[in-house]
């Protein structure tokens, strides 16, 4: 094919790409598009996952304290060890002396409660690893939740089921406001509030009845300043 040689390059030029290159290029393009969509989906999944929220994870503890045994089997009332849950912002953690009310009598010499004995002797507290934690900008008050019919198990899960304490709920804001927007369905009857296990049967009262019973004013629950100030 004869054309003006001045403006032509070598006519026997190799083609730049092969059919394989087209395939690779198209696959890469598709992959890039997928990456954009996929990374968003992955991020969503990650930040809503139990891994991120630590749901179901039991951190190691200095003493292998079993809620299953104490709360589930022995049916010790939650308030026995968390005494200020009805009156204060914090539920209260049992002091060494609280534990010793029983354990000065029973299992006093077991290896398992050695740290307790050491704490009592040395006066230095037992350092537990936190299971449930809210960020600093959240102002949470246990007492008002109990007063308005939110049972322990609603947020902490079936603590009487597992030996080591595990986180029962994600405690992310989406989860919090889920209840604050529609609290009725999550309330429990007064008798169930301190059960270590969620009752198998739904409460006898309807959500509306429970809301009325506890005088829950739902309007303020979703105000930002209810939890953040």
């Amino acid at each position, binding site marked *: 094919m004869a054309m003006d040689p001045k403006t032509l390059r070598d006519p026997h030029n190799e083609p730049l790409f092969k059919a394989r290159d087209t395939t690779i290029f198209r696959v890469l393009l598709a992959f890039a598009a997928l990456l954009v969509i996929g990374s968003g989906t992955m991020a969503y999944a*990650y930040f809503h996952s139990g*891994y*991120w929220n*630590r749901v179901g994870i039991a*951190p190691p503890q200095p003493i292998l304290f079993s809620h299953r045994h104490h709360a589930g089997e022995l049916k010790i009332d939650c308030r026995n060890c968390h*005494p*200020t849950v009805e*009156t*204060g*912002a*914090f539920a*209260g*953690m*049992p*002091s*060494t*002396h*609280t534990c010793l009310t029983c354990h000065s009598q029973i299992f006093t010499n077991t290896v398992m409660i050695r740290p307790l004995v050491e*704490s*009592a002797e040395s*006066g*230095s*507290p*037992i*350092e*537990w*690893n*936190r*299971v449930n*934690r809210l*960020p*600093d*900008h959240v*102002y949470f*008050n246990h*007492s*008002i939740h109990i*007063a*308005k019919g939110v049972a322990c198990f609603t947020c902490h899960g079936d603590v009487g089921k597992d030996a080591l304490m595990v986180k029962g709920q994600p405690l992310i804001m989406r989860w919090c406001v889920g209840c604050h927007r529609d609290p009725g369905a999550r309330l429990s009857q007064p008798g169930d509030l301190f059960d270590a296990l969620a009752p198998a049967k739904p409460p006898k009262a309807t959500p509306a009845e429970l809301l009325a019973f506890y*005088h829950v*004013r739902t*309007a*303020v629950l*979703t*105000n*930002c*300043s*209810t939890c*953040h*100030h």
Partner: protein
Amino acid sequence: MAATSQDPGSSAPARWRSIGELNGLANEGRDGGDEFPPGASEWPEGLDRRSFLKRLGASLALGGLGGCMRRSNGRIVPYVIPPENAHPERPEYYATAVPVEGYARGILVESILGRPTKIEGNPDHPESLGATDAATQAAILDLYDPDRSRVPLRAGLTSTREVFAAEWAQFLSARPAGQARIALLTEPTTSPSLLREVGLMLDAFPNALWFQHTPLASYEVDGLQPDYDFSKAGVILSVGSDCLYRHPACVRYARGYAAGRRVVDGRIAASRFYAIESSPSVTGVLADVRLPASPPRMRVIMGAIDKALLGNSSWQAGLGAQESDFVGRLARDLRANGQRALCVAGEEQPMDVRRWTASLNGRLGSEGSAFRWLASARSDSNQRSRGDARALRDAIAGGAVEALVVLSSNPAYTSVALRGVIPAISKLPFSVHLGAYADETAGACAWHLPEAHFLECWGDLRAYDGTASVLQPLIEPMWNGLSALEVVRILRSGTLPDSYQIVRECWRDGAAGDFDERWNRWVRLGVADSRAAAGARAPRGPVAAPDSSTEAPGLSLLLAPDSNVLDGRSANNAWLQELPRPLTRLVWDNAALVSPSLASRLGVEDGDVIRIAARGGLVEAPALVMPGQATDCIAISIGYGRWRAGSVGNGVGFDAYQVRPDDGTWGIEGIEVTTTGRRHRLVTTQHHFAIEGRNTVRTVDAVSLVLPKPPPRTSLYGGWPRNGNAWGMSIDLSTCIGCSACVLACQAENNIPVVGKDQVSRGREMHWIRVDKYFEGAPDNPRFLSEPVPCMQCENAPCELVCPVGATVHSSEGLNDMVYNRCVGTRYCSNNCPYKVRRFNFLNYRAPADSIINLQKNPNVTVRERGVMEKCTYCVQRINAARIDAERENRPIRDGEILTACQQACPAEAIVFGNIADPSSRVSARKAEPTDYSLLEELNTRPRTTYLAKVLNVGETAS
């Protein structure tokens, strides 16, 4: 602009702009008009390129990865033995008292998790009545001041208390028993225990001399304290007094004054307030009729008043038109009111003026009702005292002193007399200083002992009216400090005692019956059984008017204690340094106040440094043009220019003690003023004081009380359903005295940071509530209007509409919520706020994580990080706490159960907060008054905070 500004010479009550504008200067730059001042950029000290890059890298890494890494949940550490208090997180209140120039003001101190966090007034205390002033609010910060002295120092080197005791014992043992020539210097005090300890010390050492020194004026006139009841006064005359703002009884006075200025149920029986003063004071500018006059001129006017009251027809001789109008009206009103006429003189006035003014009450008949004499509560005229700092200087110079003991006083700075003998003090065989800071006096003495803060130790004090209080500690001494009581005991007995025992010993003394029961009651209530002397008798018969010379006196200088740092003792308190001075809005400085006409005569403007020569002393200070200042008088406050105050107060301002006369008088005549050509950067938080014809501060006449009502506003929109509580606030401009107590109460409650002079100069102050000042009328004698402005909590909030992330939205109870942790910092909300009440963290204003100042922080309020907007939310943390309490008990929140911090602190009860949905609440009643109005009502933002107009009771002119 110029279109609305008025000829400065015209006396028409037109509202005008800044002084700079009057002088034809368009620039309102606070640093003298340089459009792009050098060094305006930001490069903090001590940051080189390498660490900059390091930080940059770290910040990028953290920003990039921080969001994706799980944070540690941390530890939870229970008690070994549970404390008595089951709820350490819940605030508890303990009654004690704050020392105010040696007098007590009863307070309740909030303690959370074992640390004192906030000071409130004690409703059971007669000099608090539940409220406080600004200085009381700021006292909590001193406790956590990192600059506080922490260890005993010997010649500047760390030592111990034991070494001190041993060295003292050695000093004593080198001398015949009891013969040591000890000089003890204290401030005048009302503390029964301290007076008892000092007495015992003087008994034990017959050669010991006790001196008392304060740079501030005594509150006594001839050994008695004048006391006022403003609520019983129909006409008030103030002669240079600032007693509603700076006085041991100022809270009670402000409360009484407010009673006479408040509209209740649409009616008011307003008092009429006349003031004559040389420099505008918080109290004086409240006057319906105010007359600025230089100190010599004031004496002339007082002579005229005296004559007019006596019916001498020649009283007008030598008076100007304004002056004779003032005197004529005043005399007419004083005579007409008789028993309800109250005359008050400032403590800084010469003694003959104070004597004469007090005697007017007797002449007019108000003594016994609006005016009374009280027996002295403070040790000013104690028989065993050998005099003041001048006497001590003479004693030292005369070799009569071997050991000097300075207790809780800083004479090396505050006493002109003692400044001269500092080398002599250093050469004494023994000298010791007890103080909260290793200050100027500590530098002069061989020994320095850290003093315990009043919240760290036991003590006792009397209030101005004589009521005694026991001071109880809220916390163990953080730095092992000692109280003055303990030091005197160490000096006397050599033992290391406990302030608790000393105070109890004093109060048990001579007491019969069950002491512990009474003691516990005193401690609980904060008020001990009153041993106050009842009203005393007038000291003398008729008093002649102050004499005045007729010759033209020239310029005079008026010194004054500073409105914020007083005599310099609060110089290291950053809250007080950054709190705008009430009238000038100046921060972090003092200045020489000059009247507008004097400024133009001298050719100076704001920030020009002038040199003032007075009676041999010399001070250089920047001029600040102050409308309402007497024309021939320059005023400057003491308490600045300190060199050993601490990292906050060092080098701030100018030391006016340099011209302070030795005898402690405040006014100096015949001064010479020259300009230096140098400039100093004065920083104010407000620099435009004209109202520009805008209806922001409204005034009504006391007779008519008519305020034009805005047209009703309708809306196409249905509006949001409002059920439940609807929070609202009413601020009474008529009773507000403009004292700024609300500002500091808010700062303490809401963890508001201090940003420093440089940041304020860039317009970045952080106060959530500010007190706006406007001047109206002739520059040399304008009317002063003040207006506290917190967030208005608009129902149609402009800020909410423009926030892209919904970080500020409305609550169902009508609060304009601000969610710090959602804020991304666009600052659009601030732009769209017509009231400009939003504050932004332009830089990281938080204290370092390990700073001791963090202990003061309110744990119920988020400490805001960099890049976050913040603002007033009606103390929503208090609302929530009350709501939780009420909800737990299934009852509505009671009216008055929630007090906002500003409301609680307000001495005049000008701020009322409550539920406007409840027609019987106090705030609803306030808002129903005819003088109620909304700020910028025409914008239809529908603010929940409304104002009651300022009631003026000017009356008719004399002619």
